[in-house]
């Protein structure tokens, strides 16, 4: 082959490079305008009968997780991680709160039982809380600092390392 013609196959390399670059970006990662703002307060009627008011948790680091029992596989993947994070950090001043949206009560209870979730969990009838937090889909997780400000939003399943990293960082901060 004459080497001059090498440009024919080589000409596609820039395009391939551009497409490969695409893996490094996330077209959906639109930054939430809520990050840095005070977390909208809410009161949750828990599945186990109690009530939870976000304002009562001021001074603690709060992980608010929006989920649903029909959300395969992401919610099923993250449930053990959330339970584990709650067990490991509750004594150090962190709370995990589950908010079940767009779901049937029966399905939600079965989900909680299946994973043995012990952190506070409650439904969001009418979707009021998820609207306040601008939730697009499940799962989405918000990290709230000791001052009650939203510090980060995570779309998709949270993993144990991610949870640990965020909680450690936020717990380091003074109240």
């Amino acid at each position, binding site marked *: 082959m004459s080497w001059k013609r090498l440009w024919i196959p080589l*000409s596609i390399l820039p395009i391939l490079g551009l497409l490969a670059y695409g893996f490094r970006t996330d077209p959906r990662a639109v930054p939430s305008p809520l990050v840095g703002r005070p977390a909208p307060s809410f009161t949750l009627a828990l599945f186990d009968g109690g009530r939870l008011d976000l304002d009562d948790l001021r001074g603690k680091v709060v992980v608010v997780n929006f989920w649903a029992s029909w959300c395969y596989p992401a919610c099923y993947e993250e449930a053990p991680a959330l339970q584990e994070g709650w067990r490991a950090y509750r004594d150090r001043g962190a709370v995990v709160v589950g908010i079940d949206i767009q779901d049937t009560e029966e399905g939600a209870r079965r989900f909680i039982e299946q994973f043995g979730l012990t952190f506070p969990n409650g439904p969001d009838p009418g979707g009021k809380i998820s609207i306040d937090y601008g939730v697009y889909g499940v799962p989405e997780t918000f990290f709230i600092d000791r001052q009650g400000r939203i510090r980060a939003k995570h779309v998709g399943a949270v993993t144990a390392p991610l949870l640990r990293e965020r909680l450690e960082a936020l717990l380091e901060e003074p109240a």
Partner: protein
Amino acid sequence: MIPEVGFAAIAVALALACYGMAASALGATRERPALVASAQYAAIGIFVLLAVAMLLLVYAFLSFDFSVRYVAMNTNLGTPFYYRITGLWGALEGSLVLWTWMLAGYTLLVVAFYRRRQRDLYPWVLAVLMGIMAFFLLVMTVPASPFQRLAPVPVDGRGLNPLLEDTGMITHPIFLYLGFTGFTVPFAFALAGLILGRLDEAWITVTRRWTVLAWYFLSMGLLIGGWWSYHVLGWGGYWAWDPVENAAFMPWLTGTAFLHSVMIQERRRMLRVWNLLLIILTFSLTLFGTFLTRSGIIASVHSFTQGTIGAFFLAFIALVLLFSLSLLAWRADRLRAQGELDSLISRESAFLLNNLFLVGATFTVFLGTVFPLLSEAVRGVKVSVGAPFFNYVSIPIFLALIFLMGVGPLVAWRRASWDGLKRNFLWPVAIGAAGALVFFLLGVRHALALLTLGLVLFVAATMVHDFWRGTRARMRTGHGPLGAMADLALRQHRRYGGFVVHLGVLLVAVGITGSQVFVVQTETSLRRGESLEVGRYQVRFEGLEAEEKSNHFLVTGVFTVVNDRHTVGRMFPGKKFYPQEQQPIAHVAYRSTWREDLYLVLGGFSRDGQLATVHAMVNPLVSWIWFGGVVITLGTALLVLPGRRRDG
């Protein structure tokens, strides 16, 4: 148990494909027919194994086996029977099984037809097809196994995406995949020719029918997709330049270019490199479509991230392009054209222009589709490219293509004479111009619409004019008029089949023009008993009804439609509430006539059923688009009729 058997079937098929590729290539280089024959058995094996895998997956769907992740993701206990079967291709993993099974089917057809006829090309064709199947089977084994287990086993599945619960979605993917996989066969022949250095017109003649059929299936896939979008999505449109639509449209554009330019090569032995490039491009674009929609690199209503599958596809696209383009560069010496362009006014140059426009359109669509990526890479800015860009650039291109559709088939090969041009085009040009004038006098003031309608009439007139002259000539030899027409169409079925397909495309163009330019719409809140007016219709709100369906809750509005004081009937637009969806899904109601569609979408409503918001549209000529699809089907049938040589 069943998932394990299914997985094993795919794994064995992968081994067979790898073996078949190696055996066939080795058989070709060492001239050992027994090796090639064994590859044929491997092809049969792959087909059967994939059929088994598909049946097992369908069985898992029908028996609600939620331990299979794919089943749990795409069905639930309420999913109706038919949609449990079509759930098979409701998402990526199952679609790949169907896709590869079709490819295996095509491969068997190649074995059946060309085993004896194309002795030298055939083993390489088989090797290429096997290699492509091996890739898909690898994807099904590693990153996207349809039989992946789910633990813990959920009690109920998530359910099929509600938008896919529609008859359009039963057929649309099948046609689309038949089109995509269909282009694999001409690609395999092209590659075989390049490998062997046998670069005469053989591969083109052999694959002509494949190309036509693949083009047809892809066209239908696009039209059915548009129809689905029209009656399911509830915004009254059928095309939105979404990246996924573009992904299917680009191979159609290059495929259309290929379909036309091979005729020049057959006739004039020109454009050899160009045609090879086009088929390589078309095949790569079918892969690119899957890559784009499944890798999650570009946001689209259809796409969702699927782990490492994007990387697999990108690697394969890179392999295909680098391998085939290097072959092309290596063989370029032997690819010198024999014929050359004699005159600017000739059929060759009309076809060349057609190719230029089609490839230009492909480039535009490609640029618009990947521009968000480019912008982020170069400037770090997130942008999205919308319909206005695509419309602005592509409308002139498509108008030029319509014009060429009238010129190309009638202008002479090599060099057109002034007399010939006058004979062929005087009347059609006059009719097109007169038609545009009539529409103007009837009150159409939209310049683009007038231009389109004039061009469409011009092209239609060229075809009628040509067919009429042919018929008259045949009548002189003693046929009756109808007999002469049938005889002419059958004898020159390639030419007139092409005409009929063109006619179908014209109908689609008229439908698009009518519905884009002359749409009338309104949105109003109505109390019970109140009416709104849209176009010539009055739509009266009669009340709401609600019904619990197996997997959703349906609220329907009842509307009485009056047209010029005649009650034409009732329409029932609704809203479907699926527990797993944040948003309700529209259930569109529409009445089609040849003139226009009345299209109703239910918006919000009050719980007591006294008040409802309705979006009403009158979409002129939409049904022409779907009817165009029927005409294209008829034309293709005529085109691929076997035998009766001496084509036009």
